[in-house]
């Protein structure tokens, strides 16, 4: 079925409760046109030059389209004062358990919503919904990452409550999600101590893209040879500004600091929304005053 918003169809991306399929499709937001790749018709062909070939400079980012969707998502979230976090990690880092414990603790303080990304199954969204928090599952099919277009559709459907927090749990993959901006405020990388302290060096992109690293499963440290200081040092070689919190989702270590970090971000998003509203009110009042004075002159 065709998507009612942008008409995209085909492919195997599935967003729960929404008969939407992602790729392949093209959107042409910039020129207001909409057509699909398979409808391409060579038209208006000019053939200058010897053999009709010519060079065309375009200087365009390959991910420009994802960026446009991400910018739209970011604007949507900012207008509602929603603080959005993109959680990224390898499979098995304990991301979903961490998220379940996080939303359990937060849901009585703030509106919370979750977008779950996995290649297959709705199991993670079900785990989140069992806590009473709204969650929507995106299945990427063969896709190795969420992109901003999928998240845009999920936002339309999820309608996250204003002044709340949105968690986007990305597909378990420490590589590809690094390159795709979803419109989030921060990427948060979850690394568990069962994975080896040199992972930041082996998969540097994600640690470079993230603003916060959660070192999870620290309750297991007594049973492992994991050098916490070395791990943090490796991560900060890649990203000197990376904030780090040590947590155990199951035992509760560090959870208070993590919740405080989230609430701080949510407060900033809330304040920014109010500030934007006040600025808009002032601008409208000035415009109104100008119009009224013009109306006065006309009489």
């Amino acid at each position: 079925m065709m998507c009612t918003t942008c008409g995209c169809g085909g492919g195997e991306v599935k967003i729960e409760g929404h008969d939407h399929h992602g790729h392949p499709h093209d959107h042409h937001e910039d020129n207001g046109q909409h057509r699909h790749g398979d409808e391409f018709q060579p038209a208006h062909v000019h053939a200058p030059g010897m053999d009709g070939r010519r060079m065309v400079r375009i200087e365009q980012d390959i991910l420009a389209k994802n960026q446009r969707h991400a910018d739209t998502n970011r604007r949507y979230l900012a207008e509602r004062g929603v603080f959005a976090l993109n959680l990224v990690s390898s499979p098995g880092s304990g991301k979903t358990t961490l998220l379940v414990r996080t939303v359990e603790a937060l849901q009585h303080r703030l509106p919370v919503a979750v977008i779950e990304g996995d290649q297959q199954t709705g199991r993670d969204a079900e785990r989140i919904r069992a806590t009473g928090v709204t969650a929507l599952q995106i299945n990427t099919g063969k896709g190795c990452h969420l992109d901003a277009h999928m998240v845009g559709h999920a936002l339309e459907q999820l309608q996250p409550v204003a002044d709340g927090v949105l968690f986007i749990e990305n597909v378990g993959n420490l590589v590809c999600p690094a390159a795709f901006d979803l419109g989030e405020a921060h990427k948060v990388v979850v690394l568990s101590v069962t994975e080896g302290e040199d992972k930041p060096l082996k998969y540097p992109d994600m640690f470079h893209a993230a603003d916060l690293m959660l070192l999870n499963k620290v309750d297991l440290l007594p049973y492992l040879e994991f050098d916490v200081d070395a791990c943090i040092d490796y991560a900060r070689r890649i990203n000197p500004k990376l904030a780090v919190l040590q947590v155990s989702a199951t035992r509760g270590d560090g959870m208070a600091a993590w919740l405080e970090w989230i609430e701080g971000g949510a407060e900033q998003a809330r304040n920014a929304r109010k500030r934007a509203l006040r600025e808009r009110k002032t601008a409208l009042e000035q415009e109104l005053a100008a119009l009224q004075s013009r109306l006065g002159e006309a009489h």
Partner: protein
Amino acid sequence: MHEMALCEGVLQALEEQAEIQHFARVHAVWLEIGALASVEPEALRFNFDVVTQGTLAEGSRLEIVTVPAQAWCLPCGGKVSIRQYFDACPQCGSHQLQVIEGEELRIQQLEVE
């Protein structure tokens, strides 16, 4: 990583440009790929051939221009060359580096008809 998604992005850009700049065939595509962009040229070529089958760019030549990575070293106050994100400044050994070049994923130019 995600070379397939990147190739789909390139193809979409080609189809958009075909309408704007009025061409029907693409014979060659020049991509600027930063050394830190985590793109495997071989995987990119393979996926490009697959993705462009049956399109205006079928059989086109893919030219990959690698952009070396450069960073601004805060302690030195100057530009230095790096090879990975975790490299230290070759002059002072600091990791306080701000990457300024080498993350590009850009379509530079096309040969079209």
